[in-house]
């Protein structure tokens, strides 16, 4: 197995004081303890590595040797012991006696990982992977496999993708989910998607994950949001960009256009006389809401374009020709 640096495992610098190592170990051990992650082999393996790192780094003597000899510190320790037993201490350490490697960093040496008493210190009880609370509140009077098999364990969290339209992301939505239960029955569940969700937002639905074991609480359901594109709007962060059209007269003489919002409202936008085609107007705080940040709602940008008449009446043509002749520009 590839050796993983003990300091990296515990996430502490090489000069970390003892207290910091202890704190890091306790934090990681709680997080990766098999009782907290039932059935998660990866967490269990991680937990073992954390224990191994702590076993070495929390002991000043072992830590000193680890710092000096790296992952093969224990081989050096055994060599020293053998030298002392043979009555020839002080001999230079012969790496070749241990697996043929030529020094620290060569072939890795595997040794035991979890020491039972370490776990008892932390979590109590005779069983290494015991319940966190047993040492605080006493044994449950059962032992061995039967006890372990009946211990309540929380169900696993489940993820489910959910697609929402931009309109739904803007105003919020509800979704009716159909869930297949282990007994074959179907359960319907209405969940609320709050306004302001974005691509990748995760909405937790408490208690709707996998059922717990032996009476343990169920896991949670996480809805992973994907926002569908809307041809009318381009989303840039919290801002929305859209295009609206105005008559030539409105752009020339001034007036008003309606700007639709994703939730179906129509906002009146005043167009000043002499507005150029393609001018962008900002409608403050009419863009995407941000969940939990009401004061930071985005803006809605409306790009105004001229809508030219396709057919002119004789009178319109006459007036436009007159306008062209009187041309004040160019």
């Amino acid at each position: 197995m590839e050796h993983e640096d003990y300091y990296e495992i515990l996430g502490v610098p090489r000069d970390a004081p003892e207290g910091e190592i202890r704190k890091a170990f306790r934090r990681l051990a709680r997080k990766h303890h098999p009782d907290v992650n039932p059935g998660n082999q990866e967490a269990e393996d991680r937990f073992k590595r954390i224990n191994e790192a702590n076993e070495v780094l929390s002991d000043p003597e072992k830590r000193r040797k680890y710092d000096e000899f790296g992952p093969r510190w224990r081989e050096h320790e055994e060599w020293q012991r053998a030298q002392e037993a043979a009555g020839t201490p002080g001999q230079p350490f012969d790496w070749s006696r241990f697996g043929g490697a030529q020094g620290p960093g060569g072939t890795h040496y595997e040794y035991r990982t979890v020491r039972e008493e370490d776990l008892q210190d932390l979590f109590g009880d005779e069983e290494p992977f015991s319940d966190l609370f047993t040492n605080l509140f006493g044994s449950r009077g059962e032992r061995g496999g039967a006890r372990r098999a009946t211990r309540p364990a929380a169900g696993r969290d489940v993820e489910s993708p959910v697609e929402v339209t931009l309109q739904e992301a803007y105003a919020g939505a509800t979704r009716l989910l159909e869930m297949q239960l282990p007994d074959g029955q179907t359960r319907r569940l209405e969940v609320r998607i709050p306004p302001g969700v974005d691509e990748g937002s995760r909405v937790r639905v408490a208690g709707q994950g996998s059922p717990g074991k032996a009476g343990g609480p169920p896991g949670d359901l996480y809805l992973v949001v994907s926002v569908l594109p809307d041809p009318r709007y381009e989303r840039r962060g919290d801002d929305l960009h859209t295009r609206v059209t105005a008559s030539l007269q409105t752009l020339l003489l001034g007036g008003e256009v309606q700007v639709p919002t994703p939730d179906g409202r129509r906002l009146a936008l005043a167009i000043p006389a002499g507005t150029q085609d393609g001018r962008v107007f900002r409608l403050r705080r009419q863009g995407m809401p941000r969940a939990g940040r009401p004061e930071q709602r985005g803006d809605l940008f409306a790009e105004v374009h001229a809508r030219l008449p396709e057919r002119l009446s004789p009178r319109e043509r006459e007036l436009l020709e007159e306008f062209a002749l009187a041309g004040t520009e160019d």
Partner: protein
Amino acid sequence: MREQDQSGYYRIDATVKITGLSSETVLYCVEEGLVRPAMTDSDGPLMGPVELARLRKVRRLTQDLGINLEGVEVVLRLLDEIEALRTQLARR
């Protein structure tokens, strides 16, 4: 400034104001899984009413009863376990 918008979700800064906990404590609770955010987006975790109630419980345990956070963790998990057992019993 309104602390809650129509979504009913709160960022960490608003959560801190409502619960009276420090942001470090709120983040610790999230990191240790004592409180599972109702929603998470690119800006971080958001709390709903259920999570706020749980964080208020953390405040009572830490500030009123003087229990440290590691102790709070044990108390909360025990309370969860009791709640689950009660639910289980009620179903029988």
